[in-house]
C-alpha cells in the first residue's frame, strides 16, 4: 500500500465552465411572460406567479402584505376552510409572500396533482373574496406576531437601519407599526387586488418536470385579472438618509446587542456591482470571510457575523449584521470598521483572492443545481429586467478581477466615515 502523505492536499481542478440552463420563454394568452425551466428527475413542479404589487404601491405599509396573505382565505366559490383542505389534500404547499417590490403566490406540487392544484391557484389569484371574519383573525394574529418580533434586538436593528438609510417616509425606509394594523379593511384589499393583480402586471416561472401537457394545462386553465382599473404606478421618492451616523435603540434586558453597519449602495444595474459582490464576499460573505475570522474565529465575540450587498428594484444597500454579547458591543464595532479600512489600505493577497474566487465559482455551480435553485437564480435577474447575460458578465469579472481593482472598489464604496451604524440592545 502506498504511504499516504496527509500534509499535502490532493490535486484539484478549477471550475472553468458553468452550465446555465436557459429558460424557455413564451407569452401566455399573448400577455403573461412564462419562464419554463424543465429540469431535475423527480415529478415535482414549482409555479411562481409574481405581481408588481409590493408595499411601495400603497400609501399604507401593510396593504400589500394583507392583500397577499388573504388570497387563500376565501374565494367567490370556496371558503377559507375548503381552500386549506384542498391544498393539503393534494399534499401541495402554497407560499404567499410580499416584499417592498413584489407580491407572489408560489405553488409546490407533485406533478400528478398539478391539474387540481392549478385550479386552486387560479381561483385564489382571480377570485379572492377577502372575507371580514378571516381578515380580523389574521389581523389579530399578526399584531401578536408583531409584538413578539419587537422583542428581538435583530428586528429593532433591521427596522431602524431601514429608516436611517432610506428615510422614514420613503417607501423603502418606512416600517409597519402597530397602529397600521388598525387601518386595514377588506375594501382596501379588494381595491389593491383589482388594481394590481392584473395580467399586464405579472410573470410566471414554472420549474421542475415540465411536460407539454403541463404547459397545455397552463394555457387552458390559468388566467389572471383583466380590468380597466389597472394602474401599477407609484410615487417615486428620493431617499433621505439620516443626518446622524450613529443610532442606538436601547433594550435594557438584552444580553446581546444587534449591530448593523452599512449604507445605501449601487444595485444590480451598476457596472461595479459584480466587483463589489466579490469584495463583500471577502469581507463578510462566506464562512471564511474576514469578519467571521476576526469576530468569531479569533475573538469569539459572536455566533455569527456577515455582510451583504442587496438589490431592490429602485435602490440598493450594503449592510454588516451580527449579534454580540452586550459587553463586547463596542469592541465588535471597532473591529468591523477596522476590516473596512483594511480593504481600503491594503491589497488583498493572491492567496485569499484565489480562495474566494474558487469558493464563489463553487457557489455558482450550486446556484444552478436542480430545478428550484435554477428558478431562484433566474428570479434574481428577471426581477431586475435582466437576463442570464448578467451571470456571464459576473463570471468574467470573477475570473479577471485583480487586487488593485478590489482596492479601488473598497476606496470608492467602503469608506468607514460614509457608513451608518445602528445598535439595538445594551452597550
Amino acid at each position, binding site marked *: 500500500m502506498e504511504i499516504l502523505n496527509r500534509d499535502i492536499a490532493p490535486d484539484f481542478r478549477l471550475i472553468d465552465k458553468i452550465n446555465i440552463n436557459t429558460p424557455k420563454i413564451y407569452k401566455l394568452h399573448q400577455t403573461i411572460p412564462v419562464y419554463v425551466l424543465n429540469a431535475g428527475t423527480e415529478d415535482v413542479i414549482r409555479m411562481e406567479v409574481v405581481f408588481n404589487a409590493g408595499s411601495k404601491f400603497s400609501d399604507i405599509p401593510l396593504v400589500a402584505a394583507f392583500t397577499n396573505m388573504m388570497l387563500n382565505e376565501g374565494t367567490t366559490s370556496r371558503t377559507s376552510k375548503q381552500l386549506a383542505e384542498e391544498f393539503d389534500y393534494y399534499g401541495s404547499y402554497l407560499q404567499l409572500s410580499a416584499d417592498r417590490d413584489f407580491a407572489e403566490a408560489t405553488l409546490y406540487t407533485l406533478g400528478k396533482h398539478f391539474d387540481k392544484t392549478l385550479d386552486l391557484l387560479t381561483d385564489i389569484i382571480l377570485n379572492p373574496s377577502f372575507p371580514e371574519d378571516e381578515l380580523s383573525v389574521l389581523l389579530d394574529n399578526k399584531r401578536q406576531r408583531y409584538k413578539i418580533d419587537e422583542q428581538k434586538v435583530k428586528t429593532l436593528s433591521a427596522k431602524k437601519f431601514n429608516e436611517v438609510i432610506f428615510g422614514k417616509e420613503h417607501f423603502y425606509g418606512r416600517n409597519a407599526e402597530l397602529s397600521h394594523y388598525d387601518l386595514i379593511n377588506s375594501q382596501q384589499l379588494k381595491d389593491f387586488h383589482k388594481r394590481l393583480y392584473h395580467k399586464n402586471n405579472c410573470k410566471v416561472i414554472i420549474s421542475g418536470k415540465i411536460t407539454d401537457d403541463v404547459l397545455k394545462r397552463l394555457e387552458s386553465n390559468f388566467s389572471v385579472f383583466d380590468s380597466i382599473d389597472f394602474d401599477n404606478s407609484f410615487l417615486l421618492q428620493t431617499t433621505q438618509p439620516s443626518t446622524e451616523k450613529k443610532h442606538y435603540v436601547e433594550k435594557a434586558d438584552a444580553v446581546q446587542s444587534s449591530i448593523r453597519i452599512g449604507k445605501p449602495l449601487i444595485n444590480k444595474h451598476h457596472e461595479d456591482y459584480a466587483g463589489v459582490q466579490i469584495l463583500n464576499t471577502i469581507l463578510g460573505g462566506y464562512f471564511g470571510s474576514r469578519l467571521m475570522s476576526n469576530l468569531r474565529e479569533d475573538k469569539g465575540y459572536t455566533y455569527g457575523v456577515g455582510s451583504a450587498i442587496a438589490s431592490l428594484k429602485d435602490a440598493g444597500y450594503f449592510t454588516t449584521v451580527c*449579534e454580540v454579547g452586550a459587553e463586547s458591543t463596542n469592541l465588535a464595532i471597532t473591529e468591523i470598521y477596522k476590516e473596512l479600512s483594511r480593504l481600503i489600505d491594503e491589497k488583498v493577497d493572491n492567496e485569499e483572492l484565489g480562495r474566494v474566487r474558487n469558493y464563489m465559482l463553487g457557489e455558482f455551480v450550486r446556484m444552478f443545481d436542480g430545478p428550484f435553485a435554477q428558478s431562484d437564480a433566474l428570479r434574481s435577474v428577471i426581477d431586475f429586467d435582466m437576463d442570464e447575460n448578467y451571470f456571464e458578465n459576473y463570471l468574467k469579472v470573477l475570473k479577471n478581477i485583480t487586487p488593485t481593482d478590489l482596492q479601488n472598489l473598497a476606496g470608492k464604496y467602503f469608506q468607514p466615515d460614509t457608513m451608518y451604524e445602528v445598535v439595538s440592545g445594551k452597550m
Partner: protein
Amino acid sequence: MINFDKFELDNGLRVIVHADNTTPLAAVNILYQVGARNENPERTGFAHLFEHLMFGGSINIPSYDEPLQWVGGENNAFTTNDITNYHLTLPTENIETAFWLESDRMLSLAFTDKSLEVQRSVVIEEFRQRYLNQPYGDVWLHLRPLAYKVHPYKWATIGISEEHISGVKMQDVKDFFFSWYAPNNAILVVTGNVQTEEIKRLANKWFGDIPKREISKSEIPQEPVQTETRRLVLERPVPMDAIYIAFKMPGRMDVDYKTVDIISDLLGNGKSSRLFRILVMEKKIFGDIEAYITGSIDTGLLIIEGRINPEISFEKAESEVFQILNELTENISETELEKVKNKAEATLVFGYIDILNKATGLAFFEMMGDANLINTELEEYQSVSVVDLKIALKKYLKIENASILYYKSIKE
C-alpha cells in the same frame, strides 16, 4: 427509489454511495453516532461544543475550511440529542479533497488551546442568541427536564448552562474524541455524480489506515413510563401567554412511531389541521397553534404548542386542546387520513430532491439499522389505518402522559 451501494472497510467504517449523474456536484455526509444523549450530566452541551472544535484544525491540516473553499466546496454540521452530522458539497471532480479533510479529522484533531478557548465563547454567544435573547427562547431548557426525569434527553443539545460550556478542559475534549470519533462509530455517505468503484478506492486510501477504536459502552438510562401529569409555570416578559403540551411517544424504530407522527399531522400540521382550523380560525382561542414530534431514537415527544389569545385563560386553552383530542379519537375520516398520507408523500419527494438531503437521510437510516429504510418509509406511513390511530391516540395522547408548561406573560 433511491438506489445505493454499500460496503464496509476493515476498520468498521460503513460507506454508502448513491449515484446521480444529473448534477455536477457531489455531497459527502459523515454521521457520528454520538449526541447530547451520550454526555456526562456534569458536562452537558459537550457534543455540540465538540462539533465546533471539529473545524479547528486536524492533526495534519491546520484549517478545515480553507482547503475546502479552495476547491469550491461548502460545508456545515449539526448536533442533535442523538447524532453529530457533518456534511459538504463540492464540484465532483474535486471529491478527493473531501476525503483528505474528513479522514484527517477522523484520525485526530489538532487539539489547540486557542480553538477550545474561542469556541467556548462562540458557543456561549450561540446559547445567548438562540435561547436567552429571544422571546420564548428558553422553553426547551425547561420543557425537557419536565418531560424527562432519567433519560439524558432531559437537557438540550446546547447544554444546561453557560457554566457547563465554560468549564470544559482540553482533557475532556481528548477523551470525548477517542471515545466516540472512530471509523467503527461513523457512517460515510457519498451522493451525486460519482461511481462506487472510485469511492471505494478513495475510502480505502484515506480512511483505511485509521484504527478502530473502543467505543464508549455506557448504557443510556431509559425513561420510565409516565403515570401522572407534570406541570410547570414560567413567568416571562413576553407579549402573549403560551402553552406547551408534551406527550411521551415511542422512539424511531417502534411500530407506533409513524402512527403517532400521523396524529401530529392531523392535529397541527398546516392550515387545514384540526387544532389550527378550530382553535385559531373558528373559536379564536389561539393566535397560532401547531403540533410536531421530536423524532428521537429513544422515547420522544409529541408537542402541541400555541400562543393563547388575550382574555383566554390557560385552563380554558388547555381544555379546548383536550377536547380536540377527544373529538379526533371519536371521529377520524378516511379522507382526512388520506390527506395526511398525501402530505407525507409530497414531503418525502420534495425532501429528497437534493443530493445532500439524500446523503443525510441515507446515513441516518443506516444508523437505524438499514439505509434502505429510506425507500420503505412511505409504505410504512401508507399502511397506518384509522384503527391504529384510535388505539395510539388513547395510548399516548392522554393527560397522565403529558408534561404541560404554562409560559405566562408578565409586564417587564
